[in-house]
């Protein structure tokens, strides 16, 4: 299987409270050096709680955010300067908020024409044909093309967002919480559409979500992010069923499930990003934490077979 997307030691540090002159007031490591690969035709799920660096990672992968360090390779080509237009033909992004990702003052046709014109230089006739094709693929009626975004429900707007990503003709899509803003009945419609599109166009997905059940349902492999770093990685059917990292276990136990008793009242909080702990970032909340955990940062390593975890005392 060929590698569609490869990130090597990709990291991002934000400077907080920049001043006109002089150093910034603080630095936040949003993403620690991260290395991973996504195979062509695969869905890699990324889960983690808010603020753990999911979106920053995703934005680096499409060139919207220049990485502080590290490199990105897409379909064998290294892309090292953050230029969304160069990335756009190879990798596209579907945004979380379907409504705010569409310009309220443009018709749907105008929105969809841009990538066709600018990324592929298509003429008017070719554009119209392609748009009709894509619109059919995402199950939208052609008369919607002349309407404005505010006339659509969340689920329809998200289909339009997917249509725009498809219009760029990229084979890799980053789906950043694509169904989080949608109601469950509509969420299922969009997830099924994504599965159909993947089969039809041979796409590769990076599916980001905070909803464990959704990620498990759509992914081949899953990476769990905590405090800017991948703490566990493995096949979808094993990650939550047989977690190796204590944080993954906490996540799996916290997911509300009918019939499962409510968990503990107290399970701690995230560390302060401006003042990160020296060892394992999870040590303050971890029932297995030892002295070693508090001083030495665990590296992501193979625990057993295809399951990786960054933990000194894996489960």
């Amino acid at each position: 299987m060929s590698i569609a997307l490869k990130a090597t030691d990709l990291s991002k540090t934000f400077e907080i409270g920049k001043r006109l002159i002089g150093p910034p007031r603080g630095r936040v490591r949003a993403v620690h050096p991260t290395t991973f690969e996504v195979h062509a035709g695969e869905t890699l799920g990324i889960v983690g709680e808010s603020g753990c660096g999911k979106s920053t990672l995703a934005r680096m992968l499409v060139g919207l955010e220049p990485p502080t360090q590290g490199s990105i390779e897409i379909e064998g080509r290294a892309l090292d300067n953050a230029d969304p237009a160069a990335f756009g033909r190879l990798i596209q992004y579907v945004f979380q908020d379907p409504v705010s990702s569409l310009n309220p003052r443009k018709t749907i046709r105008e929105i969809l024409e841009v990538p066709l014109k600018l990324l592929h230089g298509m003429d008017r006739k070719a554009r119209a044909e392609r748009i009709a094709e894509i619109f059919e693929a995402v199950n939208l009626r052609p008369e919607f093309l002349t309407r404005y975004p505010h006339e659509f429900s969340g689920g329809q707007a998200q289909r339009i967002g997917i249509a725009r990503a498809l219009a760029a003709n990229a084979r890799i899509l980053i789906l950043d919480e694509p169904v989080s803003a949608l109601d469950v009945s509509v969420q299922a419609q969009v997830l099924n559409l994504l599965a159909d599109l993947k089969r039809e166009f041979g796409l590769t997905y990076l599916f980001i979500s905070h909803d464990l059940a959704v990620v498990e349902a759509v992914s081949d492999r899953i990476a769990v992010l905590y405090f800017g770093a991948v703490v566990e990685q493995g096949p979808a059917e094993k990650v939550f069923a047989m977690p190796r990292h204590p944080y993954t276990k906490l996540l799996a136990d916290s997911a509300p499930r009918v019939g499962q008793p409510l968990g503990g009242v107290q399970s701690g909080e995230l560390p302060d990003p401006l003042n990160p702990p020296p060892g394992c970032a999870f040590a303050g909340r971890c029932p297995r934490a030892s002295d070693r955990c508090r001083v030495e940062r665990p590296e992501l390593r193979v625990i057993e077979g295809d399951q990786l975890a960054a933990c000194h005392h894996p489960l």
Partner: protein
Amino acid sequence: MGAFVKLLFRNRLAGFGAVVLGVIVVLALITPWLPLHPPNETVTANRFLRPGTPGHLLGTDHLGRDLLSRLLWGTRLSLAVGFAAAVIAGVVGAAIGIIAGYFGGRTDNVTMRGVDMLMAFPYILLALAIVAALGPGLMNALIAVAVVNIPFFARNIRGITVGIANKEFIDAARLSGMGHTRILLTEVLPNVIPVIVIAMSTTIGWMILETAGLSFLGLGSQPPQADLGSMLGEARSAMITAPHTSIVPGVMILLIVMSINLLGDGVRDALDPRLRSGALTRPLPATQVARKSVPEVPARPGLLEIDALETQFHVGKRVYRAVGGVTLELKPGECLGLIGESGSGKSVTALSVMGLVASPPGVITGGAVRLEGQDLVGARYERLRSLRGDKVAYIFQDPLSTLHPLYRVGDQLAEAILCHHGIGRAAAMERAVKLLEDVRIPNASARARAFPHELSGGMRQRVAIAMALANEPDIIIADEPTTALDVTVQAQVLALLDELRRERGVAILFITHDFGVVGQLCDRVAVMYAGRIVEQGTTREVLDDPAHPYTRRLIACVPELGEGRRVMAAIPGLPPAVDNLPDGCAFAPRCDKATEACRTGEIALEGGARKVRCIHPEGSVREATA
């Protein structure tokens, strides 16, 4: 456009302004073709003729020039200069604001510091300084007035642009291959133009006044050219002897500035989307009530009974039936779940209980809400207020809506306690810290001094829960309190609510869209669709053996952890709009069991403890009725 004009003229003052300004502008436009004396024609014999003199309708000035003619030509000039200044200030200011706001960082920092510096001068001083540097003359006065107003536009537009630049559609445009220039022109600009227009329409009046001021001081238009300011300036010496020479241009300035400002305010309000929904009219303290009949009070009243409640929103001609006859009963110490998709009316039901639905446009049009037998619908505001917090407390999805951003959380809690109990500040503070401990906030006495923004989302929601507990209410209405939280934090908050309920016997009406949460927390559950309860029963029954097709299919849509990769069941279509509900069952257009009978007449919610609103129910309920 038609709607905009209608909205504009609904505001009488703005309409009046529009008419006055319209007349003045038309007169100014056709001035060259009017049968007037030449404006600069001096006839010394005719000095200071009074208004009404034949041939000189408004009289003449100190050089015997016809005032009517000078007034119209002067108005023409003043309007043109003011308009030009507004356009220049608007264009330059907007350009600065857009560039600073879009690029941010250093560009923003440097330009906005410059703008701040300009703003630090009193503007008339700055204008005088500019004219002094450039020399007197109408053109220079125009430049001065424009420059002085640029900072106002730059600041305003920058603020708006920052908001737009952070929108996801800008990122999407970059990924579609657009460069910065194209994004600025086609994505950002169209979204700020309305703001620019509003800012111009509210400032052009002042710019005309400022130009007139400079001309009055002799720094603007030079003799013999007439503009309104210079006419006033020249008339100054004859103020007592020939007052009409001052009054005529003075009244015109007044009319112009007043009409422009009235119109400008009207334009601003009409373009404000909030006005369309009626939100700008003064909200009533409690939801408006217009009931035709009041349900009978049962013999043995329960803790909280929502009885055939109907709440509607009246927006223009449309009637949104957000809650269409909801009946629910909450028993002491129980947790009742209210579940449904967004827009199904859960929040409006919850807010109706204490008359918190915004009015206008909200109206309670039927039913009752009884707290221990007493009807709260239509109760006096004072009574509702004394019950809010004391008997019934709310927790919302966004804790910031209950917490004031500028006060320390401990003080806010103490304030809430003092509101209903006069126990003294120190004692109230002590109880506030105790409450924070009760909701498991570590380090409670230190955290009491924190401001809401210094706490994480989960901590804030705990503070909001503490706030709800402050006066030991019998009932807590929690509207999606964990929807915005992460799973691990959600689990903590749910466990906390469950514990509080068991320890204190508080009854909870728990609103959510998550079946997992209902399954873990609630004793009973009611399912809502399009403003009505479609199914109700114990949580076990409803989740394990759903009777309404909507419930069953909605549960099937929810992926559960541990089920692995699969194709998800979906419900095609969308919930109906509540201003256009179909006849019969609202779910019929999406239901695969719908028959002719489903599409006509009223389908009742039937059953005892277990209720279903469906002609063809499923599972054990079907077997029972068959």
